[in-house]
């Protein structure tokens, strides 16, 4: 994927400051956010935020609390509709091509929510593989692969409400990566992870970028975090700038 033909090196039109990314044909870009506006009440959190991720890129998005990192990730994940601007993944529009768009997204929200507490780790993964519309013949293999990648074998048959926070986070991460999405969006993925867990996350990110996908992860700061990032951005005044 990284040797995509038709490479055009132009700056992203909406980017503030230095070049945000190399821009190739949008159909091949794992993520294009263009002119995203989002207002919460009277406060405009995103003011024309733009960001393009090329195939094979792992990127970090920083910024202080309330800068709009989660809002931007949720918009890219299709959880929020942009009030202005648009978001595309591999050329698919988040509003117009909603189902196809969602097929290519893996998303980890901040915190520890989003798991069915009374199900086991394995059952949560199985449920997600079905919701992700993974073909039946591939489902078992991908669930097993995610279980191995995030070292969940020992806890696979335990209910998630009986797991430690770090183990739960690994289950949540496994769900974000399970269906081999082209774009993985991770909101504070390091939460509750020990060094071992961070290592597993690093490997998973490398696999996505290795197959030509992209990963965007966010946290207020990068300091001390071993999570890979080829590119670093920050949100300031509602816009994305290269950090």
């Amino acid at each position, binding site marked *: 994927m990284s040797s995509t033909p038709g490479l055009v090196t132009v700056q992203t039109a909406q980017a503030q400051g230095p070049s945000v990314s190399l821009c190739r044909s949008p159909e091949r870009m794992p993520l294009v956010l263009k002119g995203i506006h*989002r207002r*919460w009440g009277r406060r405009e959190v995103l003011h024309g935020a733009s960001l393009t991720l090329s195939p094979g890129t792992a990127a970090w998005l920083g910024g202080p609390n309330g800068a709009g990192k989660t*809002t931007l990730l949720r918009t890219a*994940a*299709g*959880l*929020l*509709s942009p*009030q202005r601007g648009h978001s595309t993944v591999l050329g698919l529009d988040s509003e117009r091509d*909603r*189902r*196809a768009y*969602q*097929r290519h*997204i893996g*998303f980890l*929200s901040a*915190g520890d*929510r*989003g*798991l*069915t*507490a*009374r*199900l086991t780790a394995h*059952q949560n993964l*199985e*449920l*997600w593989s*079905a*919701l*992700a*519309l*993974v*073909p*039946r013949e591939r*489902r078992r293999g991908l669930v097993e692969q995610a279980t191995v990648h995030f070292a969940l074998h020992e806890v696979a048959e335990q*209910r998630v409400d009986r797991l430690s926070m770090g183990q739960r986070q690994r289950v949540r991460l496994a*769900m974000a990566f399970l269906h081999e999405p082209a774009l993985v969006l991770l909101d504070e993925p390091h939460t509750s992870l020990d060094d071992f867990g961070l290592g597993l996350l690093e490997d998973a990110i490398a696999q996505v970028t290795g197959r030509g996908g992209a990963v965007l992860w966010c946290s207020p700061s990068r300091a001390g975090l071993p999570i890979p990032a080829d590119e670093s951005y920050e949100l300031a005044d509602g816009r994305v700038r290269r950090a």
Partner: protein
Amino acid sequence: MSALQAEFDAVTAIVRRDWLVLTSYRLRFVSQLISLCFSVTLFHFIAKLVRVTSFNTPGAYFAFALIGLVTLQVLNSTLHSPPSILRGELGAGTFERFVVSPFGALRAMVAMTIFPLLYALMMALAMLVFAAIAFGLHVHWSTLALLAPVAFLGALSFLPFGLLIMALVLVFKQALTGVTFVVAGISLISGLYFPVSVLPGWMRELSRVQPFTPAADLMRHVMAGTHLHESLSLELAKLVGFPLVLLPLSVIALQLALRAGRRRGTLLES
């Protein structure tokens, strides 16, 4: 074909999830069963006090009320359970999984209505078996096989109301409070516990323009051989007509609620 199969698998995965969650509470099923048996027993003894022209024998009223209870089970399974599950999903943050999935929140919410309905039908069957064994409920075996399609049509006609309540839950979050009143009102005007003929005129009119009365009436007809209040074709037309008109409208309402929630950013608020 495999795309259709994946969609089907997503539906069954949601039904399976709801089943697994239910069975993870070991005593819930047993306690609900016991509670229903108590209700049946209560109505059996209340029926012994009934000496009115509407019912020739106490047993006739018992059968009448029991089928009202069965209808109430189905009613609750479509009007109350799915919105409650949705409320739980919003609180637990699992709803966002549906929204970011290619299967989608709309389909997921429709799929969420299936397990409560199957569960209600199973409970209803258990009530009938208990009533037949413990109190000798007289069942019309010759027409009993028609119960399944009638119950299905009844559930289908109740479903739009459940979906509309889900849309309200998405928009207002606290809409569940009103459902209890709605169910109580429906059980009053659709004659679940007593014939609609004893109601005042204006309430009888209300009972004609909703699908709950014909659903209960047809179930009584096929299970206990009671007379229908209106012609068979009219009652069937109501059961088919209501979902035909209301189901697309309720799906559109749900779609609009989802779209508004994503636009306003309130979709994931609990």
